């Protein structure tokens, strides 16, 4: 075997390892959960959460934000913030729906910025009235220092954008006089 063939074999092995080692992982609910930075004015009553517009991550595509993971992060963030008395699976006084509108992700890049917007709507189940609705934009940049592998950087950027979005939503709901 010549030196050129050896290098080619090594390059092929590295390419395969890089590709197989770089399978996309979905954004996690833990990574998207917003940590409360200050006490919020509690609304009281319980809330149920429903999310749509998310995407599933495929092994050959990029990291995505699923409905389930975003909903779990939203529930956990609300619970940690104390905004509502309780997060119920269904039949709650307030119903919070979130539609993940735009998730703008880079296909490749060193610094990866994900931009997203989410339409939130809070409905009082007793009166049927929409007490709050808002489109919230957020973005987050993950840099090579955060993660060497591009697939991980994209996941971190997804999680950062979602976390900031949820943080803003909780802040906006905390300002409501209900």
């Amino acid at each position, binding site marked *: 075997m010549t030196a050129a063939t050896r290098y080619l074999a090594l390059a092929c*092995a590295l390419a395969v390892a890089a590709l197989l080692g770089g399978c996309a992982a979905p954004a996690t609910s833990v990574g998207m959960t917003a940590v409360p930075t200050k006490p919020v004015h509690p609304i009281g009553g319980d809330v149920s959460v429903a999310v749509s517009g998310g995407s599933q991550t495929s092994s050959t595509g990029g990291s995505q934000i699923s409905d389930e993971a975003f909903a779990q992060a939203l529930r956990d963030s609300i619970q940690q913030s104390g905004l509502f008395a309780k997060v119920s699976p269904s039949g709650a006084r307030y119903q919070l729906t979130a539609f993940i*509108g735009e998730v703008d992700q880079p*296909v490749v890049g060193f610094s990866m910025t994900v931009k997203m917007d989410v*339409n939130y709507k809070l409905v009082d189940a007793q009166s049927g009235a929409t007490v709050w609705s808002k489109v919230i934009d957020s973005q987050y940049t993950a840099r090579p220092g955060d993660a060497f592998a591009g697939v991980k950087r994209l996941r971190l950027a997804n999680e950062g954008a979602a976390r900031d979005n949820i943080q803003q939503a909780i802040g906006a709901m905390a300002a409501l006089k209900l």
Partner: protein
Amino acid sequence: MKRVLRIGLLLPMLILTACATNSATKAPDADLSKLKTFYVVRLPEDTRGIEKLISARLVTMGHQSTSGDAPKPDAPVDAIVTYQDHWMWDITMYMIKLDIQIRDGTSGAVLAKGEVRRPSLQRKAAEGMVEETLGVIFK
């Protein structure tokens, strides 16, 4: 050794030539059939005129549509359309992914969105990507 080399070369090709995918989602209470007038906002980074292709396709589909650089049109419209086009190089440049969002003309909230991803070997011209993406959104 040659067999290992062949497998080593074929495997990345197999992974890089993944299947084409398309998908669309609507907001829970969205009714796209009520939308008659559209305005497509040009993405600042877009120098290929994708906004004009989207607007032209909407007209072909029987809607009224205009496009421009301003984030909002001069006259009110039922829906504002935004998009993100992603390009890659493989012998020539091709559009690997197109995302389109249909937004409420007043609030800017996303009513529906669609995404088409096509790898190099299944590439389409920009017109084809626009047609496919709008097709899955309004299906």
